[in-house]
């Protein structure tokens, strides 16, 4: 896809919405940063490339009173669909500009491993960072490997051919997931104790999650209900996170924004991927995969299924 | 402005409260109870001093801490009094308490009403609902030093007669002839023979002369808004009008960050502000 497809698409959608959520290039960092386009002139700054890592659907519940256009990768579209299915976003007030996505680069990991702000070039199957070069598959976001969602579930206007992408290759098998899978229950307990010992409870995980719409009254932070202590320590921080994750059951689309947002690098997706796998096995349900499917946790009917026993 | 008295716990470790016990609970209205507290340390009680308008933090250890205006007058040396409206987690827990229960207190905090600068002046007081709490302290202080001040006119309003606090005090203020006091309600009741009308209206009907006078108001935001308009209509200038602000507070010593309005911290630069000072603040109330 080129900007020749994207910019006209945004301008077209701007004819019927108040604002389009997309990306522009950060002058300081050189990578994509989220941007809002209100006018055709502003839209000239729009870009899409493999550093467009953010899931812009997170802004939809916060823009409840506007008609909003949104540039969406296939995975982002799943979040949009889930928001619609849950009644958080009205289909009528959004216009989805689908973009063909070749997989996005884990910019945080790239910069933490090779130096913050290094110029990132994605060309010829390799990612170049000012003199260094790594194979693309080594630095993609985990969710992009063997992506099943390259074609967005809902598209009002496609910027380029969104149907013909080749899923990126499977990930390297020496990573944290494989090591975690091999751990005993006791080792896993230790692993999480250590991971959550550095959580600072900044709630970036929650705020970056498009489906965490309880935000301001989130049980991680509120004292009504007082389910977790406010202390920043391994026990309370993990408890707070586990409550959040439980609330994501059947709702998480696996967009990885929580893990990407985590400033101290806690591999939250290990927990969410496991939960998503169980939900898919139990209910044959993938959050945001279809506008028609009903989330398992919304199918409970007290009249039909009875109360607590 | 007067300096902040450094008595009580402020002089020691500001975040460490003093133990205190409830000696009496008064049910003021369905939602408001007044708590009389005595510091467990008799020396602390004897040394405790404050000025009207100052605030304190009352804790139920385990539930947390909340900020209240001190509603007793400085002359009351036997106890310190907070009037508490049941609204959130802590105030709900406080409403479970009765005489003999143990609490913790940090007080006094904040800048008081500049009463010393008001000597020789007429004083106008307009309070609404639970906003009467600091004004009760002020009014009783003025009456304790009655000779220092000119004419005192006061109006206290609430939604219904049942929502008016401080019944005993009201009777005394109505009885005394050295103060013009009117209690008023937004909507009356068969048993209510007093004034019916909102505070700003009653205030205007009392037509306090602005010359050599100050006006003090505290109450719900909408009442304050219209009271300030009435005072302006009556000819009061912005530096003659005082109010006390409420913000969410934690530390009470100007550090934790949340109660600032622009560069001013309500807990230490306030809670008392003149209308002139308020207007100089960024609009973020």
């Amino acid at each position, binding site marked *: 896809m080129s900007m020749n497809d994207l910019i006209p698409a945004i301008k077209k959608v701007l004819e019927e919405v108040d604002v389009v959520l997309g990306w522009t290039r*950060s002058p*300081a*960092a050189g990578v994509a940063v*989220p941007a809002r386009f209100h006018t055709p002139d502003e839209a000239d700054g729009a870009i899409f490339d493999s550093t467009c890592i*953010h899931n812009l659907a*997170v802004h939809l519940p916060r823009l409840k009173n506007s008609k909003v256009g949104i540039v969406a990768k296939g995975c982002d579209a799943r979040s949009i669909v889930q928001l619609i299915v849950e009644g958080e976003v009205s289909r009528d007030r959004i216009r989805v500009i689908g973009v063909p996505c070749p997989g996005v680069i884990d910019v945080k*990991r790239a910069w*933490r491993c090779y130096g*913050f*702000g290094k110029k990132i070039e994605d060309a010829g199957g390799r990612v170049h960072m000012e003199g260094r070069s790594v194979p693309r598959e080594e630095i993609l976001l985990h969710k992009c490997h063997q992506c099943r969602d390259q074609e967005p579930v809902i598209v009002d206007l496609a910027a380029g051919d969104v149907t013909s992408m080749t899923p990126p290759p499977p990930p390297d098998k020496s990573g944290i997931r494989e090591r975690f899978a091999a751990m005993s229950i006791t080792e896993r307990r230790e*692993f999480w104790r*250590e991971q959550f010992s*550095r959580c*600072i*409870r*900044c709630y*970036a995980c929650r*705020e970056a999650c498009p489906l965490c719409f309880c935000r*301001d009254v989130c049980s991680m*932070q*509120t004292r009504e209900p007082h389910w977790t202590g*406010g*202390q*920043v320590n391994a026990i309370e921080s993990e408890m707070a996170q586990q409550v959040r994750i439980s609330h994501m059951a059947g709702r998480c689309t696996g967009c990885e924004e929580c893990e*990407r*947002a985590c*400033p*101290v*690098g806690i*591999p939250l997706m290990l927990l969410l991927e496991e939960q998503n796998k169980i939900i898919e096995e139990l209910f044959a349900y993938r959050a945001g995969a279809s506008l028609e499917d009903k989330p398992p946790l919304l199918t409970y009917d007290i009249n039909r299924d009875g109360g607590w026993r | 402005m007067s300096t902040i008295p450094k008595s009580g716990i402020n002089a*020691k470790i*500001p*975040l*460490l*409260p003093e*133990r205190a016990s409830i000696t009496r609970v008064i049910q003021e209205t369905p939602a408001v109870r007044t708590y009389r507290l005595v510091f467990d340390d008799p020396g602390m009680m004897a040394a405790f001093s404050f000025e009207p308008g100052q605030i304190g933090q009352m804790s139920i*250890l*385990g*539930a*947390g*801490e909340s900020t209240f205006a001190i509603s007793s007058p400085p002359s009351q040396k036997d106890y310190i009094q907070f009037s508490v409206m049941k*609204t*959130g987690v802590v105030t709900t827990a406080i409403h479970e308490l009765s005489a*003999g*229960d*143990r609490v*913790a207190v940090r007080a006094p905090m904040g800048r008081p009403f500049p009463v010393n600068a008001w000597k020789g002046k007429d004083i106008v007081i307009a309070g609404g609902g639970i906003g009467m709490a600091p004004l009760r302290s002020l009014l009783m202080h003025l009456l304790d030093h009655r000779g220092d001040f000119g004419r005192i006119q006061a109006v206290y309003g609430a939604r219904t007669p049942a929502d008016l606090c401080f019944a005993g005090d009201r009777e005394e203020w109505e009885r005394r002839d050295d103060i013009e006091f009117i209690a008023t309600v937004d909507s009356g009741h068969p048993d209510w023979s007093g004034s019916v009308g909102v505070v700003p209206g009653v205030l205007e009907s009392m037509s306090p002369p602005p010359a050599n006078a100050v006006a003090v108001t505290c109450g719900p*935001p909408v009442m304050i808004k219209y009271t300030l308009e009435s005072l302006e209509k009556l000819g009061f200038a912005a530096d003659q009008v005082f109010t006390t602000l409420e*913000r*969410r507070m*934690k*530390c009470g010593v100007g*550090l*934790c*960050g*949340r109660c*600032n309005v622009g*560069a001013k911290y309500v807990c230490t630069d306030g809670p008392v502000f003149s209308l002139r000072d308020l207007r100089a603040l960024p*609009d*973020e109330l």
Partner: protein
Amino acid sequence: MRFIAEDAIPRLLEHLAGGGRTVWAPRVVRDSVNTVLFAPWSAGEPVETGAYTHLSAKAALLPPTERLFGFGYLQAAGEERIELEPEEPEESPVLFGARVCDARALAALDALFFPASGGFNDPGYAGRRSGLTVITLACTTCDSACFCSSFGKGPAETDGSDLILYPVANGFLAEPVTDAGSELVRLDLFQDSRLEKPELAVTARVETAGLREKFIDLFSDIDLWRQVSEKCLSCGFCAYACPACHCFNIFDEMSGDREGERCRSWDSCMFYSYTLETSGHNPRPEIAHRYRNRIGHKFSYFPANRGEILCTGCGRCIRGCPAGVDIREVIRTVQER
């Protein structure tokens, strides 16, 4: 000047930890996407002297959660009473590998929490601060998020440090700033050296002149604040990563029915709940209001109250923001209005 070889650094840390003091040092955290944090060091652990830490060093002085006191409800002679147990102040630690941007932020924290510098009586902070030793790594390089050259002497600032280590081939030149620093360089681990101090980094800059007043002029321009905060997700990361942000929450937690603790924790003005009142009223309901307060506190209110900007240009909020907010762009936008 004195010199210490790179391979002598572990022995320096062991010496510093000798009296039982906690030594905080930058360390790469295991299984963390290369996260570098200040953390208590123990012998044998590697220290990261090249990378910048993703959070500032403030946790060594203002822990994310600090117990202020414990309390208990006791029954004695048929009567209930309360026991308060103030927390014993900890011994002051050593901070190894702070950067100039960390060290110079201490002045702002001291002005608030340290009686000797005019702050209020905070026994926890004072205990950790009073004998604190700060060994700073000077920056000969910087990255694109750094902007400390905007403030004072920039990378050449010595405020807050006891000893500054300048990276040179195979080690560091050591320049003492205080008596504690001078004492350290007399150790055998250091040798005399004729090497020249290296060139220090020159970072990006922002113009903060006039910002204090400009902010007040633009306070009511809510559209401006909505525009500059439109990317912001309202998490607390920037405040928690910042060496100068210090706002906190106070809360009680019970353990069982009869005892508990009162804690102070980091808090952020970016949270909706931060200013939410029990009535439901919130003076800062929108992200724009909260972001405005963040900028105001750093560049207008704190300078008005304490004479100092509450930002040292460390760039951590920029490096780690999940939404790509760059405070320098915000300052530029405000300055251009």
